[in-house]
């Protein structure tokens, strides 16, 4: 069933009679078992939108349905909603507080009122899922490396068994190795747990090869909502929004301009190389 967003708007009131419209009539659906990239530059409204999805912020207009029910309806259990729509904030390592990693990951399940045994089981499963074995369980979260802290924090949300997992710029501030590790981990989680993942980012290069749907936000509006290759066809428009298509697309576009009949709808280096090799013909085969 998933989430259904019906014509929502949101206006921030910032003090001296200044109003900022952060979201402007957004409608979309976030179905089950889907990998979605939510892209937009700073201030485009993407962080506001994700905080709507688990009920942390209430839209000033419109409604949000989760599995068919209005999340701001009378008597709706929003605490349970937050377990089902998990949200991992930017720099999530800043939320760690317990004495050891395992207890920190158990914080979410405990808030759900589960038995101690069940909390422990979920926490250790989640930690294994993010690649943190038993040797980490009793460590202080403050002694972990940057990448490990972030994985522990993700496990903390995972332990609530969300149906939809939203990650707000999970690779911010990480080095290329940390970034690849986290992104690899997320796509593995997607495959194993068959949940919906919403990956918030401002880098097309990061999300392009993982996601099967891209939502682009600009000035509080949802501009595109389509499969990656369709969205990247608008790379000129993306640039006016301070975004860009993956670098490899620009390379292929340029080669095509120069007269090489290459395929411009590629998303990674491997398929780009395939396409170039194909149009080089026998001339390209150094060995022949």
């Amino acid at each position, binding site marked *: 069933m998933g989430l259904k967003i019906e014509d929502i708007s949101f206006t921030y009131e910032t003090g001296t009679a200044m109003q900022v419209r952060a979201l402007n009539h957004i409608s979309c659906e976030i179905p089950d078992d889907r990998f979605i990239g939510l892209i937009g530059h700073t201030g485009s409204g993407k962080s506001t939108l994700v905080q709507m999805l688990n009920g942390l912020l209430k839209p000033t207009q419109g409604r949000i349905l989760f599995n068919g029910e209005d999340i701001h309806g009378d008597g709706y259990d929003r605490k349970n909603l*937050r377990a089902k729509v998990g949200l991992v904030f930017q720099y999530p390592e800043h939320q760690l507080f317990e004495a050891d990693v395992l207890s920190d990951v158990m*914080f979410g399940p405990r808030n759900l009122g589960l038995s101690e045994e069940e909390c422990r089981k979920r926490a250790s499963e989640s930690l294994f899922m993010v690649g943190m074995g038993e040797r980490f369980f009793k460590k202080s979260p403050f002694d972990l490396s940057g990448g490990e802290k972030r994985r522990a924090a993700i496990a903390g949300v995972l332990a609530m068994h969300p149906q939809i997992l939203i990650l707000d710029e999970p690779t911010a501030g990480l080095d290329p190795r940390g970034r690849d590790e986290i992104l690899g981990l997320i796509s593995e989680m997607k495959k194993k747990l068959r949940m919906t993942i919403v990956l918030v980012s401002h880098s097309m290069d990061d999300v392009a090869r993982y996601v099967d749907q891209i939502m682009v936000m600009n000035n509080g509006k949802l501009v595109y909502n389509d499969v990656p290759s369709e969205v990247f066809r608008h790379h000129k428009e993306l640039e006016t929004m301070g975004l860009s298509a993956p670098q490899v697309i620009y390379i292929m576009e340029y080669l095509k301009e120069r007269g090489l009949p290459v395929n411009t709808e590629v998303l990674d280096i491997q398929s780009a190389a395939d396409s170039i090799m194909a149009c080089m013909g026998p001339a390209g085969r150094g060995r022949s």
Partner: protein
Amino acid sequence: MFENITIGQYYQTRSPLHSLDPRVKLTGTLLYIISLFIVNCAAGYLLAALFLVCMIRLSHVPFRYIVRGMRAILFLLAITMLFNMFLTPGQVLWQAGPLHLTREGLTFAVKMAFRLTFLILGSSLMTLTTTPTQLTDAMESLMRPLKVLHVPVHEIAMMMSIALRFIPILMEEADKIMKAQMARCAEFDSKHLMKKIKSMVPLLVPLFVSAFRRANDLAMAMEARCYRGGEGRTRMNPLIYRTRDWIAYGVVFGFMAAAIALRVFSASLPFPLNL
């Protein structure tokens, strides 16, 4: 929930009050606060209110902006009033069980409320029109005599100004951490007191960790920019008294004199000014 706090924040604009020497504003604010405890009758409070309104007008800070900062303290104000109303002995006006509302308590509570409100508005007016750096310089300059007693005047002033700078940053951080914990199903609005205290742990621990990290970073950044205490430091804008500052001193002392006079002659004032 934290974005409404304006106490201690600087409001950037051009106004006669902004351009005054910070030493005048600091002394003026202190004298104003003292005067609030000198006056004891309606006329005195009227004078204090008048003075405050004039100053707010002179500051060009929107009135609504200043009042918004009051909201955070409303709770404190209400508590103080309630305590005073019911716990002051005197002529009973109304009674419910063990609670006595007395005439003396009521007058005292109203006066206290006025004092506190004026006090907070007055001191936030100072911080709204004075940058922390100016405030630091003023404090350092006014407290200079204490240096003889080996009081670390410069260091105290510097710490205060840094604290003021980091209030909004830590408020924003607290808000973020709170949301992150709420996303993990934490509840911060529990009615149960013990639960409420316990629920603060997941907020306060990360907040302290972050504050320490920031303090560490800041110390290093300051060292990298050659900071080594007050010794040998110069100022971009050294404090110099101008004519308008002397006039301002005059106005403040004039107000002070009026406040004292009103107290001395309060008994001979006509009703209702003598209340």
